[in-house]
Every structure is written in C-alpha cells, then in structure tokens.
C-alpha cells in the first residue's frame, strides 16, 4: 500500500489530499482499456461495443453501491461532486416546490452547496444557514428548531474539507426522517476515509467524487434513495434521458470504471488505511506541538477525518509560512492565498478570530505519504515557524506579555 519509510524523501512532498489525490496505479490500469479497445457508448444497446461498455459501467455501479451500503440502481453518474450537489439540491427544490420552499444547510459547507443554495434564494426559496460550534459541528437542537412545515431538504456535509470535522450525520438523518424531510449529504471527503453507510446513516442523497479517493477527476456520482423514502429529482440537464432520466449525457466510461475501482480499493483497504493515516497525522501533530508554543488545532479532535490536520501557528502569517515550506504542498486559510482576499470562511465560522485564520495550515495526508515525509514536513514547519516568529512583531509583543487582542490597531476596520 504505502511506500516504505526509509529516511529518504523525494521533493516536493504532496500533503494536500483534500484538494485532490494522486491516482492509484491500480485505478489507472483498470481504466486504460476503456480509452482504446473497449471504447463503446454504454447507451448503444444493439452491438457488442455498447454491451461491453455497459457491462463495465454496471460493474462500477455495483462497486460504488457496495462501499456505501446500497444497491446499484440507486447510483447516478455525474461529472463530479459539484454537479452532484447541484443536481441533488436543485433537483429536490424543483420537484418538491409544491410541498415547501425551505432548505436548511450550515455555514461550513463547500461552495458547491452554499452557492447552489444562494441561487435558489433568488428564486423564492428560503435557506437557513446553521452555525457551527467551536469544534466545527452543528448543534442538533439548532437543526430541530430550524425545521418547519415548509422544510423540504436538509443538506449537511459528512466531513469538512478544511478542518476534517465529521458532522453527526446519522442523528441528522434520523431527525430528518422523523420530520419527513429529505437529507442530502456531500460525502466526498468522508467516503473511503471513514465508514459511510446510507442506510445506517439515514442519508437520502449523497454526493461522491472520484478524484478525492485516488480515482479520476471529472467523474462523480449521486446516490438517490429509491425507497423509504423514495426521492425524486427534476433533471438539471436535458438530453437523451440517460441515468433513469436524471442525468442526460453520454457516460464517461473510463472515468466511471476508475471511480468504481477506487471504491473497490477503498472498501477493501479503508480500515487498515485509516489507521495508517491517523498514525501519520498524529505523528505530525505531536512533532509540531512538542516543538512549538502557541499552536492551535482547528476543528474537533475527536470527530475528525483520520487524514486531516488543520493548525493555526499564532503570530505567523499563512502565506509567508507556505513560502518557507515551498517544497511541501499544503493549503492555508490565509486571505493572501485565496482568490477573494478573505480569510477562510470555514475557520471564521468556528469563531476563532481572523488572525488565527490567517495563520492556519491544512495538512491532508494520503495513501502515498510516508513516515519519512511526515518527519521532514514536521521539521521544516517547526524551523520555518521559529524563523518567522523571530520576524514577527506580534510574537515579540506576546513575549513581552502584551495581549494583542486588546491592542487598538491603527488599521482596524479598514480592511
């Protein structure tokens, strides 16, 4: 599975596995024939080329369904999780418009969910954005209070892409089912990392993507529950009526084969792999925290993806830290690294303060990381933070006993 830890590391090191993952060679191998000799259109019903493609697609459907505890008839292929989120939310909104116009989501969802909800608000829907607690999880009582007789959909992610916080989806699903509300979950970060079973977790719609689980980009799926309750969607793309009319468009057969294979590997290896990843993650955390003061973990420690570590290094700005560790690929919540020049809305939602958002780094460990890489990263991060703190007026003030949150800053309110 993983490379051996032999002390030597190859640079640069990739530790940004929430953004995307390297494709597993076994996935690539499974996909290759479908680019060339087995090139048929899965919708061609009257010749052997079509049958071969369809057979491959159906096998992939089975592999995906098995991973999330359902049947293959409930899997719809899409171009990725953004499309799956759009189809789930807009498809339900349009289908159940007569029943109600209220949707519930939460503050730290992915933009694919938040911006879809914002668009629906322009079309007469009412959206409740639940806050999160300090650990990044919603309060179930807030959810219960938010549901009213016009609520048709609750959409809450299984695991957050920045802080790795796991939402209590089983309880959320139970509340939804008691109230007769459909429950959609963007599960892209959770699938293949932690157990996710649509039946046990009371999920009605779930978004999945290939490239977060060592599969291909541009291929995803949506689980659509067929009974108790039967969920109906209004298609968002018109055309040939593929995927039981829910998603027209010729199927991306090689991508689908890859997604299926990635799910099969996850199914077989998840238990062992999550232990391996949490071991690496804890080692990284311990090496950093035992060598630096004023370091804070963002998000729940207990309810967390095994491969996620999100840390704020107080008094050091995230982009300058990334510059100092430029042979390591990670992400920062710093405004300077975002297109909008705003610090991470996910970290802001935790109530940690903008200064800690500016100082945050997200480490996303993956299948191909090694202990030697973790050791290298930890040392480099510690050295760079120490160097930048020597440069930091805030660290100097902190050492002089000044509480920087109490200082009246000249530029405050200008940004």
């Amino acid at each position: 599975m993983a490379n051996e830890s032999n002390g030597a590391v190859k640079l640069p090191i990739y530790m940004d596995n929430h953004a995307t993952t390297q494709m597993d060679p076994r996935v690539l191998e499974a996909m290759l024939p479908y680019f060339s000799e087995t090139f048929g259109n899965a919708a061609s019903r009257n010749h052997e080329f079509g049958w071969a493609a369809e057979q491959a697609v159906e096998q992939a459907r089975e592999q995906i369904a098995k991973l999330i505890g359902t049947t293959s008839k409930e899997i719809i292929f899409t171009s990725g999780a953004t499309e799956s989120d759009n189809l789930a939310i807009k498809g339900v909104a349009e289908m159940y418009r007569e029943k109600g116009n209220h949707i519930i989501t939460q503050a730290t969802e992915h933009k694919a969910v938040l911006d879809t909800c914002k668009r629906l608000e322009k079309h007469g829907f009412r959206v409740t954005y639940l806050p999160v607690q300090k650990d990044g999880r919603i309060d179930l009582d807030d959810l219960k209070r938010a549901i009213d007789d016009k609520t048709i959909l609750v959409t809450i992610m299984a695991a957050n892409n920045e802080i790795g916080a796991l939402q209590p989806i089983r309880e959320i699903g139970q509340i939804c089912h008691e109230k007769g509300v459909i429950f959609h979950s963007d599960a892209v970060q959770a699938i293949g990392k932690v157990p996710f079973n649509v039946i046990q977790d009371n999920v009605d719609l779930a978004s999945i993507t290939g490239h977060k689980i060592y599969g291909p980009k541009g291929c995803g799926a949506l689980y659509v529950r067929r009974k108790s309750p039967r969920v109906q969607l209004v298609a968002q793309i018109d055309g040939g009526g593929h995927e039981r009319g829910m998603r027209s468009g010729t199927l991306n057969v090689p991508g689908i084969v890859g997604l299926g294979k990635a799910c099969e590997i996850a199914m077989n290896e998840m238990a062992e792999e999550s232990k391996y990843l949490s071991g690496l993650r804890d080692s990284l955390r311990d090496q950093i925290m035992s060598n630096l003061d004023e370091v804070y973990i963002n998000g729940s420690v207990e309810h967390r993806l095994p491969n996620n570590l999100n840390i704020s290094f107080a008094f050091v700005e995230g982009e300058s830290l990334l510059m100092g560790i430029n042979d390591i690929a990670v992400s920062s919540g710093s405004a300077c690294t975002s297109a909008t020049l705003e610090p991470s809305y996910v970290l802001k939602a935790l109530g940690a303060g903008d200064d800690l958002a500016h100082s945050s780094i997200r480490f996303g460990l993956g299948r191909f990381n090694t202990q030697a890489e973790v050791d290298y990263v930890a040392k480099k991060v510690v050295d760079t933070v120490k160097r930048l703190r020597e440069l930091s007026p805030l660290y100097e003030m902190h050492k002089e006993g000044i509480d920087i949150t109490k200082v009246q800053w000249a530029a405050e309110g200008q940004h």
Partner: protein
Amino acid sequence: MAYSDKVLDHYTNPRNVGSLDKASAEVGTGLVGAPECGDVMKLQIKVNPETKIIEDAKFKTFGCGSAIASSSLATEWVKGKTVDEALEIKNTDIVKELSLPPVKIHCSVLAEDAIRAAIGDWKKKQQDEA
C-alpha cells in the same frame, strides 16, 4: 503565485531584523496594520540628533512574503537618509523595486505608512523634549 527574485531574496535574507529601544529619544517606532487583516509591520529608526540622519533602522513584520520584503527594503532605503529625505519614499518605488503584483500593492502602502509612523513618533518625541 510566483514571487520576484527580489521578494524571495528579502524573504530568505531579510535585512535589519530586530528591535531598537523604543524608550530612547533618538528612536522612532511605527506600528501599522492589524492582525485581523493579516499584516502588521513594526519599523523603527534611530536618528542622529545633530544631523537628522537615520543611522539605524530595524523591522519586524507579520505578513505575507511581499509584506516582509517591503518592510525589509524600507529599512534599507531609510538608512543613511535624513528624516526629510526618508519621507519622500513612495509606495510606488517599493512596488517597482520588488515587482509586486497588483494584489500585493497594499504591502507597499503599509511599508510607506510604517516609515511615516516611525518618523512621526520620532518627531513627537523631539517636540515633547523641547
């Protein structure tokens, strides 16, 4: 984002890092920016009371690489200048020297603000003494 060689050089080998005695009558201290905005610069100058020449300058910066480079460059430029000459340094000069992209212009503005704040603090001390 790609950084210019000069930004990388200042980031890797920042000039004049440190602190001067802020209680000294010859020292002016400028502290600009705010942690919430992701940038705080502290720039200090030590002025010869006779010649009004800035004999020493030090900085510390919390901010991105461009902010660190802008303040590092500012300390290099003010050293050896008189107070009045230092006030003529413009943020656009810093942008040009470091080849800062448009999204990083605010770093150069902050560095100019820091120079002005340090000189302002020094001038206030001279008035208070007089």
